C-alpha cells in the first residue's frame, strides 16, 4: 500500500482488558482481537450485520451508563468509554447466551451422526461451549420434509436451519442473486426459492460453506465423508484467472470437495460454483497411465518411459520443432516449456495461446500486460471501470464479485463495451455501450477515463481487430490502468514465463540482444535462438508448409481454436509429442504420448490476472504422475540439452532468482478497426462468449453443477425479431459455410446487427459447428 490510511482508533475494555480498534469495528470483532470468542451464528464479517440469532449477547456500558438489556455484539460498533462484559465476566451475558443456545436446539433435529456438517459444525461446537448437557425440552419438534432440492447442486434441510439468514444475505448482498429468501413466519419461517425458480446462482456454493449448520449441503458431497476423515490441503483454483485461494479435501487419495479459501486481497472468502464443484474431471475422464508410442503399424501402443522418451527425443531432434502449450499450464510448467523450446529445440516457436488470438494481441501483451501491476485493489479504488471484451460474471467470477461489491458500496461506475447486455452487467448497473461486434475499437476511443480508472480487457478483445490498440491508446492518453483478464488460469503465468514467441521469461524481448544474453547466462547456455518465433496460427501454417516437422503439445484442445480442420490436419502431419492427462484430439494424432499429473496431483503455482502467485501443494500425495516440467526435463536430457528441473520447487526457485528486467520494452503498432460489413437481410454479426458453466473439459463428470448452467439460447434484438417475426422460443438456425446450429430465440437488448449465442454450451459449440467466432457474418433463419 503506497498511501497510509489514518484510522481513528477507539479504545474499549472487554472483560477487563483494553483493546484499541479502528472506529466502526463491531464489538464482536474487537473481542476477537483479544482472543475472546463470543459465540455467533448470523454474524459474518463480510455480510451486513443482522442481529437475528441473538447468540452473541453481551453486557455493555458506556461512560458508566449500562444498557438495560444485553446487546448483540455483532451489531454494535465500539464507542469510546465502552466497557464490555462477555460471557466470561458477566453472568447475565452468560445466561443470555446459554438461553439462546437452548432455544436454538429445541427444534434442531438429532441428525449429527448422519449430518455432513457433523464434526465441523458451529452449532455443534457452540452447543458444546455454550449449551447445557441435558435438554429441558420435552415437547414436539418442528418437522419438515427433508431434504428439498433448491437447485441441482444445493439441498436444503429446513429442520436443521437456524434461520441465521447468512445464505439469503450472501445471495442478495454479495452475489446479487436473490434467488433464495426467507418465507413464512415464526417457527415455520424457512429458506425457500420461488416457485419453479431454482437457486441458479453461479455463487450458490458459498451458501453451503457459510451455513453454520447442516441445512444447506452440496448434492455431490452429501453423505460422502466425515470432516475428520478428510485431509485438507491449501490449493489454488485452476479454472480461471481470478486466482481464488482454495482448500482441497481428500480422503484416501480421492478429492471429495473443494472449499473457498480466505484471502482478503483476492477472493475474500468466496469462490464460484465451478471452482468449488468442478473437480471430478480428474477422475471422471479415462486418465492416461502409461506412455504411448505409435508403432510401425501406425497404432499407439504402451511403451516404457525410457523407450517413449527416446522416441520423443529422436523425433524432435530430427525435425524443426515448435511448442504449443495450453493456457492451463502452471507457471512453473510454462516456464519449463519456455526453457525447453529455447534450449532443447533451439526455437522461439512457442505460443501458449491455443485459442483465438492475433498478432495485435501478442504486441499488446508484450507492451501493456507483461509485468503489469494492476490489482483487485485498483478496482476497489477506481472511479470508473471499463469492460472490454469481458463478461466478468461468466469469465472471471471473482472479478465480478469485487465489482459488485464496489457497485453496491459506492455505486462504482462500470461501463461495458459489448454487443449484448449481459445479466452480469445489468447486476452491476453498468452503462451498456451497445456496439456492433467487430466495431469495439471506435466505442473504446470515445470513452472518457481518468488516471484512477481501470480498463478490464478480456482475452476476447483480441477477436476484434483494433480493440486492443484502442485500449492501449486510451490508457496511454488518460493514464488509466489496464488489466488483461484471460479466461484460463495459466495464461498470465505463461506470458510471464515467456511461453510466447517474442518474449523470454520476465518480460525480456527476444529481439533484444542484451535480454537474450541475460537469459542465456542465467540458463548457462552459450546463446539463445534469435530468429523471431511464430504464433500458434503461424506454427500450424508452418507445419503445412513443411517448415516445421515436429510439435510438442501440452494441454491443448484444438477444438478451442480457430481453423480447427487445419489444426487437426497439422497434428496428423507433424511428429507430435503430447503431454496430457487423458486421451484427447491431440493424443489421438500424436506419435508419443506422455502422461502428466493433473492439478491436484502436483504442486506449483498460477499467476492470476494480477500477476499474483497462487501456489499450491499436491493434494493427492500418492499419485505417480509428474508435472510437465519434469517430463520436459527428461526429454531434454535425452536430447542432450539439459534444462535441469529435478522438482517443481527447483523450477520455482529458479524463477524466483531470475531478477527483474529494466531493459527495452516492447512497443505496439496500432491496428485499425475494420469497416462495418454490409449485411444482407438474413445476415447477422456473431457475438459470443463462453459461459461459466458449459461444456468445458474441466467440468466433466459433475452433472449436478451442469444442472445450474444457464439456458442455451440465441439472442437477437426486438427490432430484428419483429422483422423476422420471431418471438421468444422460436427456433433460429445460425449457419456459415462450415455448418450450423439451431437454438431457441430470446429477444433482448442486443445490437440490431448482432446475434449472440454461447460459444461452448450444449447445442451451441460455435467454433466446432460454425468455425467462426466473434465478428463473423452469419446467416440466420427462422425455422
Amino acid at each position: 500500500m503506497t498511501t497510509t490510511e489514518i484510522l481513528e482508533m477507539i479504545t474499549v475494555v472487554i472483560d477487563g482488558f483494553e483493546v484499541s480498534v479502528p472506529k466502526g469495528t463491531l464489538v464482536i470483532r474487537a473481542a476477537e482481537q483479544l482472543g475472546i470468542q463470543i459465540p455467533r451464528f448470523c454474524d459474518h464479517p463480510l455480510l451486513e450485520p443482522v442481529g437475528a440469532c441473538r447468540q452473541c449477547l453481551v453486557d455493555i456500558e458506556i461512560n458508566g451508563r449500562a444498557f438495560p438489556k444485553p446487546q448483540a455484539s455483532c451489531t454494535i460498533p465500539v464507542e469510546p468509554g465502552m466497557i464490555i462484559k462477555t460471557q466470561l465476566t458477566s453472568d447475565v451475558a452468560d445466561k443470555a447466551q446459554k438461553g439462546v443456545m437452548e432455544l436454538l436446539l429445541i427444534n434442531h433435529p438429532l441428525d449429527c451422526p448422519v449430518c455432513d456438517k457433523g464434526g465441523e459444525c458451529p452449532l455443534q461446537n457452540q452447543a458444546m461451549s455454550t449449551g447445557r448437557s441435558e435438554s429441558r425440552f420435552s415437547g414436539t419438534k418442528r418437522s419438515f420434509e427433508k431434504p428439498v432440492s433448491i437447485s441441482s447442486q444445493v439441498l436444503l434441510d429446513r429442520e436443521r436451519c437456524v434461520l441465521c439468514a447468512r445464505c439469503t444475505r450472501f445471495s442478495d448482498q454479495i452475489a446479487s442473486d436473490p434467488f433464495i429468501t426467507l418465507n413464512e413466519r415464526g417457527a415455520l419461517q424457512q429458506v425457500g426459492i420461488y416457485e419453479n425458480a431454482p437457486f441458479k446462482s453461479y455463487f450458490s456454493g458459498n451458501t453451503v460453506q457459510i451455513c453454520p449448520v447442516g441445512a444447506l449441503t452440496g448434492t455431490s458431497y452429501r453423505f460422502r465423508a466425515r470432516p475428520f476423515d478428510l485431509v485438507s490441503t491449501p490449493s489454488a483454483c485452476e479454472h480461471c484467472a481470478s486466482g481464488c485461494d482454495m482448500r482441497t479435501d481428500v480422503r484416501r487419495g480421492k478429492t471429495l470437495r473443494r472449499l473457498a479459501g480466505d484471502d482478503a486481497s483476492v477472493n475474500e472468502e468466496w469462490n464460484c460454483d465451478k471452482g468449488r464443484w468442478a473437480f471430478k474431471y480428474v477422475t471422471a475422464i479415462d486418465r492416461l497411465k502409461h506412455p504411448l508410442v505409435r508403432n510401425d503399424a501406425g497404432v499407439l501402443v504402451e511403451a516404457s518411459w525410457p523407450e517413449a522418451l527416446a522416441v520423443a527425443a529422436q523425433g524432435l531432434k530430427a525435425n524443426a520443432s515448435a511448442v504449443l502449450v495450453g493456457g492451463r499450464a502452471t507457471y512453473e510448467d510454462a516456464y519449463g516449456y519456455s526453457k525447453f523450446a529455447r534450449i532443447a529445440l533451439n526455437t522461439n516457436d512457442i505460443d501458449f495461446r491455443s485459442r483465438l488470438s492475433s498478432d495485435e494481441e501478442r504486441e499488446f501483451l508484450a507492451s501493456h500486460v507483461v509485468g503489469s501491476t494492476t490489482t483487485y485493489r485498483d478496482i476497489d479504488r477506481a472511479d470508473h471501470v471499463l469492460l472490454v471484451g469481458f463478461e466478468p460474471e461468466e469469465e472471471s467470477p471473482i472479478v465480478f464479485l469485487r465489482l459488485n461489491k464496489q457497485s453496491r458500496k459506492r455505486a462504482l461506475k462500470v461501463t461495458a463495451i459489448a454487443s449484448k447486455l449481459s445479466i452480469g452487467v445489468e447486476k452491476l448497473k453498468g452503462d451498456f455501450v451497445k456496439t456492433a461486434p467487430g466495431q469495439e475499437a471506435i466505442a473504446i476511443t470515445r470513452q472518457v477515463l481518468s488516471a484512477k480508472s481501470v480498463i478490464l480487457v478480456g482475452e476476447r478483445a483480441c477477436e476484434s481487430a483494433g480493440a486492443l490498440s484502442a485500449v492501449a491508446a486510451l490508457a496511454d492518453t488518460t493514464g488509466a490502468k489496464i488489466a488483461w483478464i484471460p479466461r484460463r488460469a495459466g495464461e498470465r503465468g505463461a506470458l510471464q514465463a515467456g511461453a510466447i514467441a517474442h518474449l523470454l521469461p520476465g518480460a525480456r524481448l527476444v529481439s533484444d540482444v542484451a535480454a537474450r544474453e541475460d537469459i542465456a547466462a542465467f540458463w548457462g547456455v552459450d546463446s539463445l535462438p534469435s530468429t523471431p518465433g511464430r504464433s500458434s496460427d503461424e506454427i500450424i501454417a508452418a507445419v503445412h508448409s513443411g517448415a516445421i516437422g515436429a510439435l510438442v503439445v501440452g494441454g491443448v484442445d484444438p477444438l478451442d481454436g480457430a481453423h480447427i480442420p487445419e489444426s487437426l490436419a497439422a497434428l496428423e502431419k507433424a511428429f507430435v509429442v503430447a503431454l496430457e492427462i487423458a486421451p484427447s484430439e491431440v493424443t489421438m494424432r500424436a506419435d508419443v504420448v506422455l502422461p502428466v499429473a493433473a492439478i491436484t496431483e502436483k504442486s506449483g503455482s498460477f499467476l492470476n490476472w494480477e500477476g499474483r502467485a497462487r501456489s499450491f501443494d499436491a493434494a493427492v500425495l500418492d499419485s505417480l504422475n509428474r508435472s510437465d516440467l519434469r517430463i520436459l526435463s527428461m526429454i531434454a536430457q535425452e536430447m542432450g540439452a539439459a534444462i535441469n528441473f529435478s522438482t517443481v520447487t527447483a523450477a520455482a526457485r529458479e524463477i524466483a532468482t531470475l531478477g527483474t528486467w529494466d531493459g527495452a520494452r516492447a512497443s505496439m503498432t496500432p491496428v485499425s478497426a475494420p469497416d462495418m460489413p454490409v449485411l444482407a437481410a438474413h445476415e447477422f454479426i456473431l457475438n459470443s462468449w463462453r459461459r461459466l458453466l458449459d461444456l468445458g473439459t474441466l467440468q466433466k463428470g459433475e452433472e449436478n453443477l451442469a444442472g445450474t448452467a444457464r439456458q442455451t439460447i440465441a439472442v437477437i434484438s426486438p427490432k430484428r425479431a419483429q422483422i423476422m417475426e420471431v418471438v421468444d422460443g422460436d427456433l433460429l438456425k445460425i449457419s456459415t459455410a462450415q455448418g450450423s446450429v439451431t437454438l431457441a430465440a430470446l429477444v433482448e437488448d442486443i445490437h440490431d446487427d448482432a446475434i449472440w449465442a454461447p460459444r461452448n454450451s450444449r447445442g451451441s459449440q460455435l467454433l466446432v459447428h460454425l468455425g467462426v467466432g466473434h465478428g463473423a457474418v452469419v446467416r440466420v433463419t427462422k425455422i
Partner: protein
Amino acid sequence: MKLVPVLSAHWDEKDSFTIQAYTRHDGYKASQKALAMEPDALIQLVKDSGLRGRGGAGFPTGMKWGFIPQGDNKEHYLVVNADESEPGTCKDTPLMMANPHVLIEGCIIAAHAIRAKTAFIYIRGELTHVVRRVNQAIEDAYKAGHLGKGIEIILHVGAGAYICGEETALLDSLEGFRGQPRLRPPFPAIAGLYGMPTVVNNVESIASVPAIVLHGAEWYQSMGTEKSKGTTMYSLSGHVKNPGQFEAPLGITLRELLELAGGVREGHRLKFWTPGGSSTPIFTDAHLDIPLDYEGVAAAGSMLGTKALQIFDETTSIIRAVLRWTEFYKHESCGKCTPCREGTWWLVQILRDLDAGVGTEEDLNKLLDICDNIAGRSFCALADGAVAPIISSLKYFRQEYLDQLANKGPLFDPDESTLFAPAKVGA
C-alpha cells in the same frame, strides 16, 4: 373523573364519518391554521401540548417530529401506523370508522410540520370496512382540496401481520418486503421509508393533533396528569356490562371507568385485567385505583400501552387466558430472531400441558426461566410482550397454577366465562 370527548365528540352523529359532518364541527380549520404556520412553530406547539404517542410507548410526539433533520434536501415521509392488531386493542378501528377525516387532517398538519409531501396510512389487512371508509374519506378530502395541494396521502393495506405494527417492520412491509423489524440505528427519523427521514405515528396520536392546533397547547395541557397530558381513548372489553370506547383525560382509574361502563358483568367480580393490551403485564382487583397514565401504570409494574382494558371475571382460568395469548404470539412471531421464534413455540407447548393440568411446580420455574431467557434478549419488543402475561400471571396467580396441577386437570369450565353463559345473578 368524567368523560371528555374530544376525538369522539361527534361519533354519535349518524353521518359522523362524512366530510360534511366533519366540516360542520370545525373540520379542516386546524389544518388551514397550521399550514399558515412555520413548521418549527407547529412542532413546538405539539411539544408544548405534551402529547405523547398513543401507540403504546408514549414517546413525546413533538420530540419525535423534531428528530427529522431539516434542510437535508431529502424527501421526508409521514407514516401512520394503523396496523392495530394487539389482542384487546380496538381504539383506532372505531376512530377511523367514525371520524376518518380527523386522521386525514392530522396527517396534513403533521406532514407540514416535518416537511413531508407524502403521508402513508398503513392499515391492517383484516380491516376491510376501515379501508373502504378511509379510502372514501381520502377521496373526499382530495375533492374538497384539502389534499393534493402539496400533501398527498397514500393508503396501504397490510397483509395481516401483528409484527407490522412494529414501526420498522411496518416500513419494510410498506416497501414491499416481508414485515420484519429492521436493525436500529439508523432510526426511522434518519433513514426510514425508502431510506428517507420518516416519522411513524399511531392513528390516535395524529388524530389528536387537529384539536391541539385549534385549541392550543395550554388547553391540551389542562387535561390529564403531570406528565401525561390530554385525553385518550380507553377501550373496555371482556366481562364488562357496556364494553366500548371511553374517552377520558389520562389518569382516570379502572374503578372510575368500570362505573362508566356499568361494572363487571352482572353477578361476577373482577379477577384480572390488562391495562394496555395483552403485551402489558396483567393487573388484578388490587389495582383498581391505579391512575391510568404512563407513569402510574409503570409504577405499578405494567405499561399503559394502548389502554386496552380487557376485563376478566372470576370465571376465567388465568392459565387458559395466558395460553390463548401465547398462542397468538407464537402465531405472530415473525421468525427473525431466535428467542421469539423458538421461545413462543416452546412456551405454547408448556402452557398447553399446564392448561391440561400436566406438570409439576418445577415446570413453573422452568417456564419463568425460559421467559427470562426471552425477555430482553429478542430483536424487538414482540417477545417482551409475549412473556409479559406469563410472568405477571405467575406473579399474581401462582397458586391457581399449582391448584390446577394438583387437580391434574382444568379447574374452570370454559363455558362459564363466555358472554353467553347464563348470568348468575346474586351469586
